[in-house]
């Protein structure tokens, strides 16, 4: 979340789409309800089904699964056509005025410029800004709107030249002056890979000897936004194709209903009023598509266009479905990032300097503007991370043991990992805290893959589908004998049996305490992992190996090595000084060697600090475990609660909050003022921690989006930020009932990964797969393990399939009757729930039905063991087709056919 759960109470308008918070986040949903009750905020819900959330919405629209970009693109078009945009915000806080390179082409035919049909990738050199200064009609370097006091003084220009025009400094020298504690990675939205010019392993890993193109240090711009190649004009042109009629053809939402929603949502910017704020709330209903990342991009563009980002009651808010999925992501739970969203090296990063150079951005902006470019601190974060990993053995002379780090030459995302296991290349799997077979996609393929593995280690608290893949339905006793995979089951501890932190959607690190000890031989995760690690290290010590150094030199400084306490680990993540530290910006303060650092502004790139995750630095300082705080003071009444737990980054509750003020530093809305420029103190002050360089005067025109090298929000995302285009474009799901009405020849995302194994079949309407199917969870369940809790089983006794009443009538199906749903990959049998909450839709002139299947059941659990279910997992149906940026599979919106069982 850019904002946080509680902040939703401050909103005037909610668009809830790609998420069903009432169902999946019922506790957080109190805040949308609060906004309705206390502010008369309006709630628009867009979903393939009329959901529990829709039940309390002011307006509900039924959308075809997988067409969200068409819908949101229609909103962008509507906002521009009806002048419901935040002009000052747009000009000063986004790259709307930047000029895009000549040769860049919009995807009228479904393809952006630079497409390489052979490699199914883009060559992105035209996806860049033009070099050069002010090219607008009034080239005086002034802010576009007369009223906005964002004009730039000449001193600032000089200052800026000093810091901005030296891109070739070595990483040791490229340090930011440390005065404040700013920062704000894109973490909670699914744009983890997108903030730097150089892309991930897929992007430049395949690049030849030519260095990848970089952003120009001095960007050409036109503050009047009239230049035909300005980002704003390109945006306008791109989404002019997303007319209400086109939206209706693609999404199935009737034109009048779409216009009603567009009018309602953009009404917050009626007549240029900047007081109100709208929020967009989403979850995996957006990410789980082959264009998932771009759906979220479209939302971000819409929010930048309306000036809603950084503001109380605004933002783009990802609801995380797991109690700690935010923490897993922050701590490097994805294959291409280290903790704190630092990149993982590629083979071409031959030494630390090369790696740092590739991954540390340099400012790219109009020369008259300032850019904090906070990722310029990458070297400090990276070296401190290496010191946390390898301790004393990490020295300047040996590149802080940089060469110990794995280099990734290809993608190892979830779906790719299973594909490689199925291909016989991945030989073993450690499955902790997840149920890979049930999660899918294409569960059958995952079962087949496990059959080919040498070993499988499952740590769980219940018997589950992955540990018992060898006993899945359809495997006979004889088949079982042929499975040679050795399965080890480890007794894990449940969430209430261990302490530690959960990081919630609002980015709060909250400490929790043990409620009951683990039963029997069950052990907490860190003990299991420590025992495995120490045993492996012992083996390396005794027997040697190909490359024992990274294992032998890993620091393991815990009081109880076999069972490290999570408090010690939390302190290690926060980071400490390894030598006495002083800072010229904060005279008189010395952080003594061995002390916890107060925050990431104190991290150094010379080996004098160690820090496990720079983003969490400040969470457990010399002041104690701030993550354990339970202060309930909220003097502003905005629900900021500065002393409750600890929020990354730097205990800041709303990210990019500089954008809550106009260019002169005055809040857009005094009633919801978060931070502001204090003339008296000559610094940014406020109710929240300013997400900004605290002493940067408004006249300096430093951009509020300090994690972008531009300093401004990206409406146009340049270069390798995204694999599939600088603007989002609607592509059909991999399995779709129609060809893309925008460009039938290029119906699907051209760079999304397609798997080629014999089990990766895709179905078409011609083969009879003509019903759109989506999958989801129920509020009564937690993932797959509540199958084992009588209370949850009682609440939803049996698996079911939601089907539209009209379809049931046509097929003669009555509620409670068993039906069989099949996709090109598998079948699923359950009882039909006949409902009016899913209506038939007209998609591009064709009557189309959607159905929905809740995921949860499988072949182990109370109902399963009693023979009350069909022993199938819903994800036997879903396809292994993945988004090219976040690698998320398309669980929402694939094709099936329905029969009576």
């Amino acid at each position, binding site marked *: 979340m850019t904002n946080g759960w509680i902040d939703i109470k401050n909103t005037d308008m909610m668009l809830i789409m790609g998420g069903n918070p009432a169902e999946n986040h019922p506790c957080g*949903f109190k805040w949308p309800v609060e906004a309705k009750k206390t502010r008369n905020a309006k709630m628009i819900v867009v979903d393939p089904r009329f959901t529990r959330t829709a039940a309390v919405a002011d307006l509900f629209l039924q959308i075809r699964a997988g067409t969200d970009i068409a819908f949101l693109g229609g909103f962008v078009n509507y906002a521009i056509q009806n002048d419901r945009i935040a002009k000052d915000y747009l000009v000063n806080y986004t790259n709307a005025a930047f000029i895009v390179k000549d040769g860049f082409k919009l995807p009228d035919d479904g393809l952006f410029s630079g497409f390489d049909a052979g490699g199914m990738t883009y060559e992105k050199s035209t996806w860049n800004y033009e070099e050069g200064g002010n090219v607008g009609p009034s080239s005086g370097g002034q802010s576009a709107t007369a009223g906005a006091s964002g004009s730039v003084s000449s001193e600032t220009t000089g200052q800026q030249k000093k810091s901005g025009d030296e891109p070739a400094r070595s990483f040791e020298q490229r340090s930011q002056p440390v005065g404040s504690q700013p920062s704000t990675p894109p973490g909670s939205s699914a744009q983890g890979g997108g903030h730097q010019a150089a892309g991930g392993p897929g992007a430049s890993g395949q690049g030849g000897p030519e260095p990848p193109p970089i952003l120009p240090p001095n960007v050409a711009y036109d503050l009047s936004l009239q230049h035909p190649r300005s980002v704003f004009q390109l945006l306008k042109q791109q989404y002019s194709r997303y007319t209400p009629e086109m939206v209706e053809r693609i999404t199935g939402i009737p034109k009048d209903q779409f216009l009603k929603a567009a009018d309602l949502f953009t009404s917050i910017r009626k007549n240029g009023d900047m007081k109100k704020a709208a929020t967009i709330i989403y979850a995996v209903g957006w990410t789980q598509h082959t264009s998932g990342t771009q759906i979220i991009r479209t939302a971000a563009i819409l929010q930048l266009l309306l000036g809603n980002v950084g503001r109380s009651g605004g933002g783009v808010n990802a609801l995380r479905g797991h109690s700690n999925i935010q923490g897993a992501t922050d701590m490097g739970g994805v294959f291409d990032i280290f903790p704190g969203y630092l990149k993982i090296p590629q083979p071409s990063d031959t030494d630390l300097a090369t790696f740092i150079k590739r991954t540390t951005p340099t400012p790219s902006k109009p020369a008259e503007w300032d850019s904090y470019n906070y990722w310029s601190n990458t070297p400090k974060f990276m070296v401190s991370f290496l010191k946390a990993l390898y301790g004393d053995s990490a020295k300047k002379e040996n590149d802080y043991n940089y060469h110990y780090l794995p280099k990734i030459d290809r993608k190892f995302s979830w779906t790719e990992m299973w594909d490689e296991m199925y291909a016989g290349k991945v030989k073993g799997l450690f499955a902790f805290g997840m149920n890979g077979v049930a999660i899918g996609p294409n569960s059958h393929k995952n079962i087949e893959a496990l059959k080919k593995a040498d070993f499988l280690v499952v740590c769980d608290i219940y018997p589950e589908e992955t540990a018992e893949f060898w006993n899945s339905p359809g495997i006979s006793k004889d088949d079982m004998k042929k499975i040679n995979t050795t399965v080890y089951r480890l007794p894990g501890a449940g969430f209430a049996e261990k302490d530690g932190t959960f990081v919630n959607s609002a980015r709060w690190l909250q400490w929790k305490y043990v409620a009951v000890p683990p039963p029997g031989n069950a052990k907490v995760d860190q003990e299991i992992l420590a025992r495995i690690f120490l045993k492996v290290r012992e083996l390396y010590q005794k027997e040697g190996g190909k490359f024992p150094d990274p294992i032998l030199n890993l620091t393991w400084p815990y009081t109880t090595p076999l069972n490290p306490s999570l408090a010690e680990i939390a302190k290690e993540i926060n980071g400490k000084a390894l030598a006495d530290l002083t800072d010229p910006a904060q005279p008189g303060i010395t952080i003594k060697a061995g002390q916890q650092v107060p925050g990431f502004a104190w991290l150094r790139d010379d080996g004098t600090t160690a820090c496990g995750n720079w983003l969490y630095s400040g969470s457990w300082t010399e002041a104690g475990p701030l993550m354990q705080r339970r202060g309930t003071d909220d003097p502003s009444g905005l629900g900021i609660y500065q002393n409750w737990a600890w929020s990354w980054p730097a205990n800041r509750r709303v990210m990019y909050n500089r954008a809550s003020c106009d260019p002169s530093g005055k809040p857009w809305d005094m009633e919801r003022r978060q931070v502001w420029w204090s003339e008296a103190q000559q610094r940014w002050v406020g109710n929240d921690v300013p997400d900004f360089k605290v002493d940067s005067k408004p006249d300096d025109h430093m951009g509020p989006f300090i994690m972008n090298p531009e300093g401004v929000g990206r409406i146009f995302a340049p270069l390798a930020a995204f694999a599939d285009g600088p603007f989002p474009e609607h592509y059909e799901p991999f399995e779709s009932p129609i060809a893309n009405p925008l460009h039938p020849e290029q119906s699907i995302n051209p760079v999304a990964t397609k798997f080629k194994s014999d089990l990766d079949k895709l179905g078409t309407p011609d083969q009879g797969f003509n019903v759109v199917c989506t999958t989801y969870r129920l509020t009564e369940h937690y993932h797959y393990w509540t199958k084992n809790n009588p209370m949850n089983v009682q*609440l939803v006794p049996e698996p079911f399939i939601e089907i539209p009443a009209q379809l049931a009538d046509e097929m003669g199906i009555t509620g409670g009757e068993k039906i069989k749903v099949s996709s090109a990959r598998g079948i699923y049998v359950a009882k039909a*729930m006949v*409902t009016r909450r899913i209506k038939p839709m007209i998609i591009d002139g064709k009557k189309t039905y959607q159905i929905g299947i809740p995921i949860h059941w499988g072949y182990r659990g109370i109902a399963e063991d009693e023979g009350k279910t069909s022993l199938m997992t819903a994800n036997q149906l879903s396809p292994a087709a993945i988004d090219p940026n976040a690698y998320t599979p398309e669980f929402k919106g694939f094709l099936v056919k329905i029969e009576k069982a």
Partner: protein
Amino acid sequence: MKMSNPQVFQIQEISAHPGPVPGLGTQRAVQVCKYIDVTTCIGCKACEVACVEWNDHPFRETTFDDTYQTMPSTDWNYWNLIKFAEDERDGNLMWLMRKDQCMHCEDPGCLRACPADGAIIKYENGIVDFNQNNCIGCGYCISGCPFDIPKFNQKTKKVYKCTLCSDRVGQGLEPACIKACPTGCLHFGTKHDMVQIAGLRAKQLQEHSGFANAGVYDPQTIGGTHVIYVLHDINNPERYGLPKDPVIPPSYTYWKWLAKPAGLLMAGLGVLAVFFHRVAVGPRLPQPEQPAPVESQPDPIEAKRKEQP
């Protein structure tokens, strides 16, 4: 342990009790009330779980009913059930979710109907509670309830229902369902306060959400209830499965005032008859021993069964 508030548990009346009620109406006590805002209920069932857990109800089988509802109706060991209903309003679909439980009527039909001394108690605070120790399992309360709430347990032959967590309320706590509600659609407080905030919410719905007929369900036909709802459409409570003008079946209304005195009269006459019989005929004297009657023929089936090993 916190002392319970004696006022809250001051007995107002008890079922089928002849003569004066002990401690009747000495002081005006706080009237409690649960207010349920149906318009912000998301049907998450947290209240169902809280109810089952607080009351230590055992796991029970439920059946799929073609809806999201846990089961078709409340049961003797399932006192709190969210009822789901799909409904159209001005061409727009609505998915109504209403938490169903005992309404704790001001004029409780169950209590009116109950013939068992002390099986149903209404406290000064408005809570209507069942005391299974005194329940005779006649089931009159079931037919006396306009909301179909009390449920019979075949095994114990007693009737059960929501207690409004009288055990918690007596200790100054809110009912378990209220504590569990994540959206705040459930409220608990004095009847006066609840009626007031429910009224404000209904007004807000009328003025800002386009529900011109929003209103508070607190049916006066039974003197009001200690569980009140805000509904999108107060004119059609049937859509939520609520009776528009709930009434206690007339037979039970008359029970206390007519049938019961009549019954008592009959009983009195009976006693008198015994008395006069005694006076006229004299006491029953010991009768001479009679030989045991000849045992009836054994049941052939039973006999056969006994023969089998």
